[in-house]
Structure formats: C-alpha cells, structure tokens
C-alpha cells in the first residue's frame, strides 16, 4: 500500500480534512458523554457527563466531536465499506501532529467537545494503532488537552499498545460491524468474530481492573473511564431485529458495554452481495428505541420481541407494540402505580414519570392535572386511569387500539418520533444522530 502513502502526502490540509471526515461520517458513535472531568490549571478543557452537542449537520445528526479518520488507506477489503482496498477513491493520511493541532484549535473556539479518532488499517494493525497512540500522547502530553477523546481499538494490534492508548482515551470502541458471524464471513473476509471480540474483552478487563484500582488508590490512572462502545451496520445483511436486539443485550451483559450503536447501511458499492436500497432510517430509529427500553426501562430482549425472525413494527414504537401484546397489564392507575409500571406506559418517559410521582405526593391526580403537568396523553390515555376513570370509553382491543395509535401519522412517523414524542429520547437521540 505504499504507493498510496507517497501520493497522499501531497494532499493539502483542507483536502485531507474533507476526505478523512467524509470517510468517518458513517461511524455513528458521537456521544461525548459519560465522564465528568474538571479542568485543571495549565491544561485545556474539561469533559461534561451530560454531553454537549455543538452543532447539527444537514442530516440532523449531532456534531460534538471532531470525527475523523487517521487515514482511509486500507489493506483490507470489507465489502460494505467505502474505504475498502478495491475501491477507487481519493486517499489521504494525517500525521499525529496535524490531528492534534486541528483538535486544539477547534476546541479553543468551542467548535467541538473533543476528538473521535478512527482509522482504516494502514500497513498493518500495529502501525495504525501506534499512530493513534502517538496522536493521543501529543494531545495529552504536549498540548495538555483535557477534553474528550474517543478512539478505535484496531483489531489485531498488540495488547500492550491498546492498553497504553486506553490510559489516554476516555472511550474506546471496537466495531462488531455485522450482527452475525455468517455475515461477517461473507462481507468482511479479512475479519473474524474472534479478532473483534478479543480486543473487546481486553478492554472490558482493563476497565474492570482500573475501576478497582481507582477505588483503592485515587491517584491510579483510569483506563477508558467513559467505557467502551460498539457499532453494527443494520440493513447490509439479513438478520432480524430480534437477532440484533438479542446480540445487543448480550453485548451489554457480557462485555459491559456502555453503548451499542446502530448504523443504517448506506449503499457504498454495487457488489451483488449487498442491497442497493435507501438507508433504513426508521428501522434504525426503532432499534434505538428498543435499545433505550433495554438500558433504562428494565425491559429484556425477550419482552421486546419473541420470535427469532420477528422485526420491530415500523408503525408503532416498541413500547406501544409491547403494550398491545400485554394488554392484561393495563390500564394502570396513575395515582398508585410504581415507577417501573409507570415507565412501561406508552408515552410516559422518565421525565413524565418523575413529575407524576412528585405531584401525586401532595394530591390525587386527574387527567386535567396531568395535562397541566405537561404530560402528553396522545398515547398514554389508552393505557391509564386517573382515580379509576378512563380518559374515554374504549374497548381494550389490540386492533382498535393499534388503529387509534397509528392514526394521524400519515407516513410522517420518523419525523414526528424523532422530534417530540419522548423528550428523554430526544435528548439522547439528538446527541447521537
């Protein structure tokens, strides 16, 4: 691959930035949240656990990190990837110093929250990981950069190198890429399940160990304090949503991941092995909603979907879908239900539940009260009672309810959902695309 490196060095900085940010844009993990770190004298910046969006791109996705590749020169040939060796595209390579300077200058102007550095595999895994590590050393050591850094661990790189980088990064991720081993073999012939899972468990071990050490000795250096995340491409291969949600659940459990990201596959090649359709955005959105139920609402993967080849409904959000299949649990009395039960009511998110719990301490609530509290009853009203009364007479029949819940949507489902329905989801969704 050296002939690339020769010609790419002549590309000017602007051109490099364009190439290497465009090449990184399909990577969705953009959250900068998860660590709170105060600034110190003599260093630049801080990290904020609640996550700050600095701008929103024309596709409506949050931009909070300078998300770039070190290089898009790759020795591998994954079929779903625009940077694959066999693809004829302009290539570029950043030096660690160039990346550090961009990061610092963007940060000082408050364009960004930090850096998200990923890379194709240039020369080999170790060389690539070394360059990433160099960049981190410059940023943390020379520039005293104290802001957020997320890097990719390159599968196949030396353990020692990955560990060393982990002490300088806030978050690391290894992409699981595709939801099954068969798909991986078919579409990413150079990768194996093991090569991906190995660095993942290495990171997990490091994180657990470091937490124990930090608990004992406060001065112990912390390893990947914002945890690890991963990403998989949805729609490039035939797995069902059930399969994806099961995998997601087990990743959270087995590798204590902080986040699993989904990326709707955007066609980047006309390889007959791959679909050539528009990116399945609504499906991606539903998966994020399901993921939300897993992480914050106490649902298990088996509750969300039952059958192995089942997919999430595109018309109904996963919580509504679950509620319609479990109508025996409804309606729920607003004045007595516990938190967990309240959170299972379609349309009631964390913030609404909190308000209800607080307000009912000083008085019994009616539907009028709920409206005043700013609780959206559009969906919730079919599933709750206030002081024993329903909002309107309606039979608890799944088909009738489904009709009620989907009317007025007129195909604008994605837009509506991503904007107003669930404030909590909006906050999170907004910071993550």
């Amino acid at each position: 691959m050296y002939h690339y490196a020769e010609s790419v060095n002549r590309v000017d900085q602007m051109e490099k930035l364009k190439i290497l940010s465009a090449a990184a844009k399909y990577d969705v993990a953009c959250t900068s949240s998860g660590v709170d770190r105060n600034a110190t004298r003599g260093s630049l910046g801080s990290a904020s656990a609640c996550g700050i969006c600095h701008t929103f791109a024309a596709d409506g996705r949050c931009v909070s990190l300078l998300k770039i590749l070190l290089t898009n020169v790759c020795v591998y040939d994954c079929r779903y990837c625009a940077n694959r060796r066999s693809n004829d595209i302009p290539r570029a390579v950043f030096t660690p110093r160039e990346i550090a300077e961009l990061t610092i200058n963007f940060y000082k102007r408050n364009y960004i929250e930090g850096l998200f550095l990923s890379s194709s595999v240039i020369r080999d895994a170790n060389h690539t990981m070394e360059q990433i590590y160099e960049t981190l050393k410059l940023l943390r050591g020379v520039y005293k950069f104290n802001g957020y850094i997320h890097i990719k661990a390159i599968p196949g790189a030396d353990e020692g190198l990955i560990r060393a980088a982990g002490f300088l990064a806030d978050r690391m991720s290894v992409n699981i890429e595709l939801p099954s081993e068969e798909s991986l073999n078919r579409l990413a012939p150079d990768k194996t399940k093991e090569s991906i899972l190995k660095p993942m468990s290495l990171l997990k071990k490091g994180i657990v160990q470091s937490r124990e050490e930090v608990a004992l000795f406060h001065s112990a250096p912390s390893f990947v304090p914002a945890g690890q995340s991963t990403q998989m491409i949805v729609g490039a291969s035939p797995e069902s949503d059930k399969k994806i949600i099961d995998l997601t659940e087990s990743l959270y459990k087995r590798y204590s991941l902080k986040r699993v990201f989904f990326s709707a596959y955007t066609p980047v090649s006309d390889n007959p092995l791959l679909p050539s359709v528009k990116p399945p955005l609504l499906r991606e959105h539903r998966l994020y909603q399901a993921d939300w139920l897993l992480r914050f609402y106490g649902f298990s993967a088996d509750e969300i979907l039952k059958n192995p080849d089942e997919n999430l409904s595109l018309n109904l959000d996963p919580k509504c879908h679950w509620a319609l299949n479990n109508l025996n649990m409804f309606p729920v009395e607003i004045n007595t239900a516990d938190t967990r039960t309240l959170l299972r009511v379609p349309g009631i998110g964390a913030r609404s539940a909190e308000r209800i719990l607080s307000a009912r301490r000083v008085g019994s609530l009616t539907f009028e009260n709920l409206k005043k509290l700013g609780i959206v009853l559009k969906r919730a009203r079919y599933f709750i009672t206030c002081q024993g009364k329903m909002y309107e007479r309606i039979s608890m029949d799944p088909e009738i309810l489904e009709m009620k819940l989907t009317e007025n949507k007129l195909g604008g489902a994605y837009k509506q959902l991503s904007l107003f329905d669930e404030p909590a989801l909006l906050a999170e969704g907004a910071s993550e695309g």
Partner: protein
Amino acid sequence: MLTAIFDGSLDGFLSVVYSCYYDKRPYDYVYEDGVYQQQLDSDYFYVPTEPARSVRVMEAIGKRVSQDAQTNVCYCCLANDKERFTSLLRYVRLGFKAGAAADNYLQDPHVLKVHKLVQYVLREAHLLTGFCRFKETKSGVYYASISPVNNALPILAEHFRERLMNQPWVIHDTARGIAAVYDCNDYRIDPVKNSPHVDCSDDEARFQELWRAFFDSVAIKERLNKDLQRNLIPLRFRKHVTEFQNNSPAFITQAPRL
C-alpha cells in the same frame, strides 16, 4: 392590591421577599422597573435592593425550603418573562409554608410556571454551551457573541471559566448589551455600550474555513433532513454560529470588523 417594583436583579428580588415579610406587605404582583403597566386598583411600592438583606433571605430559603428552591430562584430570575417575579414570590412564600415539599405542588400554576421557566433557562444555556463560537483575535483574547432569549450569560460564563480556563475570553450578549470578560483568573459581567472592535488573528480565517469544510462533509446526503436540523439548531442561534455564516471572500472583506 399590592405591587412591588424593583431593579430586576436577583438581589433585588430577594429584597422584595424581605420586604414582603418585614414590611408585612404580601405583594400580589412583582415587576421589574420599567416593564409593567400601571393599574388603577393597585398600590405601588418601590423596593430598593439591599444586598445584606438578600443574603439573609437566600440563607432562609436554603434552610427552610431547600437547596433546590435556592437554585430555582437564581435561574428563574434569568428567564425572559414579565410575570416571572410574581410567580417566584408566590413560590417562595409557599416554600416557607410547605418546606421542601413546595416543589411537589405542580398543580399550583405558579410552581409549575417557575419550574417551566427554570427548565427553559437551563435548556437554552445548555444549548449555548455547544453553540457559542469563539474567534481568536490579534490580542489573543477569544471573542464570542450571543443573543439568547433568556439571560444565559451568567451560566455560560461559569461553564467557560472551567472549560477555557487558560485563555482570556469575552462573551458578549448583543441583545442585552452586556458582556462577561475573563482574564484567566476571574470574570466580570458588565454593560457594554458599543459593539467592540474585534480584530481576528492571522490563523482565524483558516480555522473557520477548515471547520466549515468539516461541517459540510460530515452530513450524509442520503439522510438529509433540514427540518430536523432546524428544530435542533433553531435559526435564531445561527447568526452567531460560524458554520452557518456566509463565507464568500467578498463577505469577509466587507463585513463590519467585529
């Protein structure tokens, strides 16, 4: 009817609370001087701001109501709503009766209003911690302008005092004519009359261009969604935000030198 008029500051409001109890005047309305309409059926009292009293009131709120109530009072004062002080006084008075439970009385329109305003203030300030853009000037000071609906400047100044601790900066609220000026030690918020003369450093244009190029190239064109973008970064913020500013060379040379 009793109406209190005061200078609109936090200390001023706390002095009104003091007067409400010690002068035994349970005000029905509280307004900032200059933003109210005289009603015939009300008696008006101008309440002077007395920092010594306001400190005592703040302490009392912390002890007898809650720390949450203290922060609610601080943030609610920053809201852009003429009626906020009236609701805030009712809220504080309820607090002195009900203690920390006051925050549960969301059925009370004043409590709900205070909560909503506080949320709005915090939400807008949070957005601005992301949207605020600094320019590097020749003198090495970083300059940013904003024009928020609520008075977000005090919250922003606290944020950037941490984040950009080692560089001097100015955040200028052009709508209110005030600016926070930070000298690497501490900041002060003062009125500014004229728009300051901002002379950009030699590198500034280059980094702005690099940033705009980055901004354009990260959008995935198959997923374009300008409506969503407009909801997430509303137009009213954009005039201060580098990546939404016109960047033709003509514009740069003709633009007033900020």
